[in-house]
């Protein structure tokens, strides 16, 4: 039985990420570590402040961005009511947290590994780079719209080779995809790991397929339970079976999931 926990832990800190985080709705949240050990980067936790009452009803899934002895760190984008409510948490306030959940990214010490982060999809790669046995093999390609300072990009840059691309206009997107293709092609024989919006994951899947590179993608399906029980978060696999993203994913081999 994997070690999982459900605990009420206090908020240690919550703040906009960088000087432009507030305007762009990008935040950083630190909670006391509820007992998470052996976290696999790419795994996530479900978070729910009891003060929510019943509205919003569900916990919200966030990727574990750092798991330290004393605390766990998340990076999040204000997408709606739940994440907006996270920004109003006060230090010391309890949050019910369960995890670590799901399958993390593959770690292959010998393989040149390209990390592709789209926007807040960069979050799990902080822990990935920090715990990878051979960080020299890692490179990050980061696509984003808000300024880079809103993301843990520099934190990653301190550990591994990083490269970023800012989408400012719709025309930038095909140019980003071109760059993406180039980098994926360069990783033939290696590994590509992606986290971000579905169109990005789709590009990664197709390009990896085209260039014969093994790739994993992390899905952000809507979740209610996070533990495989509600069957709400299913993704489809090529055989037409529907599998729970929360337990069989969120990280899937790109050729084992229909996007």
């Amino acid at each position: 039985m994997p070690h999982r926990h459900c605990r009420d832990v206090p908020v240690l800190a919550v703040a906009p990420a960088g000087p432009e985080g507030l305007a762009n709705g990008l935040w950083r949240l630190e909670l006391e570590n509820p007992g998470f050990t052996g976290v696999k980067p790419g795994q996530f936790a479900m978070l729910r402040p009891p003060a929510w009452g019943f509205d919003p009803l569900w916990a919200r899934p966030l990727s574990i961005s750092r798991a330290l002895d004393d605390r766990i760190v998340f990076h999040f984008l204000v997408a709606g009511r739940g994440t907006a409510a996270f920004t109003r948490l006060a230090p010391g306030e309890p949050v019910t947290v369960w995890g670590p959940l799901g399958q993390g990214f593959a770690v292959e010490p010998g393989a040149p590994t390209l990390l592709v982060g789209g926007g807040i999809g960069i979050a799990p790669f902080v822990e990935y780079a920090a715990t990878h046995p051979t960080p020299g093999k890692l490179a990050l390609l980061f696509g984003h719209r808000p300024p880079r300072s809103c993301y843990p990009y520099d934190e990653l840059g301190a550990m591994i080779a990083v490269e970023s691309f800012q989408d400012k206009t719709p025309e930038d997107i095909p140019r980003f995809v071109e760059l993406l293709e180039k980098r994926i092609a360069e990783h033939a024989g290696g590994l590509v790991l992606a986290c971000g919006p579905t169109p990005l994951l789709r590009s990664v899947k197709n390009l990896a397929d085209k260039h014969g590179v093994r790739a994993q993608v992390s899905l952000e399906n809507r979740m209610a339970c996070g533990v495989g029980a509600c069957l709400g978060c299913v993704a489809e696999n090529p055989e037409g079976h529907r599998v729970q993203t929360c337990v069989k994913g969120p990280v899937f081999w790109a050729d084992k999931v229909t996007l």
Partner: protein
Amino acid sequence: MDLRVDLGGLTLKNPVMTASGTFGYGLEFAPYGDLRSLGGIVVKGLSLKPREGNPVPRLAETPSGMLNAIGLQNCGAERFLKSMLPGLPWRETPVVANLYACDTLEFAELAGLLASAEGVAALEVNISCPNVQAGGVLFGQDPALAARVTEAVKARAGSKPVMVKLSPNVTDIVAVAKAVEGAGADAISLINTLTGMAVDVRTRKPRLANVVGGLSGPAIKPVALRCVWQVSRAVSIPVVGMGGISSATDALEFILVGAGAVQVGTANFLRPDFSFRLAEELPLAAQALGITDLSTFRGSLAVG
């Protein structure tokens, strides 16, 4: 406090069960508590053949509630019996199989299969699932059809108690309850979800691929309490109450209006240790209210 309950031949050590479809096959929750501490485990609705269910999106959050249109995705009764049931502590905590089928013959076959398994303590017949186009809805909304399914299941259930689960989407739930009681049901559970819908004004599309789905959670508790109260006064078989239970007080409310036991559904999503905590808290909450015996408290609502 003696927490034992008898539900028409099914004995529980305490009144806290898990509701079908919200607790998986049980093992998903093992990391978060001791399954043996629960009164009973009702597993995800099972059909004869495995089902892949509805396309996504299958879930939508609503004020103090949620909609689901899972479409009864499940691994099929055989696979459940072979691969899942053996992992459950069924000797310590009764495992109840929830049955879903599209006609009475299929219900009967399914009942025979599941009832013959040693680890299955009882059957719960879902005549009320509103998510699947064919069958489900109709059985639960017509007393005569509900009675026919009950009879068919009873005929193949052997000595295993049969609990029939009612839908609230009817004009007269008491009529359905009496019909299934008359057809031999050993117990009644209620309520299943209310039929609802959610839409997205931006995309102009329904929020569920199936368009309509089942509403559950705290939002429906008032409707559930009313149904349990009406039905438990009208029938003489035990009633299992559910619908929005999210605290020990909620559970006691259902017992107060007449429920023999309760099932926890959506609240399992609020935190995965919810049902375990409830089993622990229920006797303490009862004691704090000066309740020394659940059986005298049960159905003791003072009306008029």
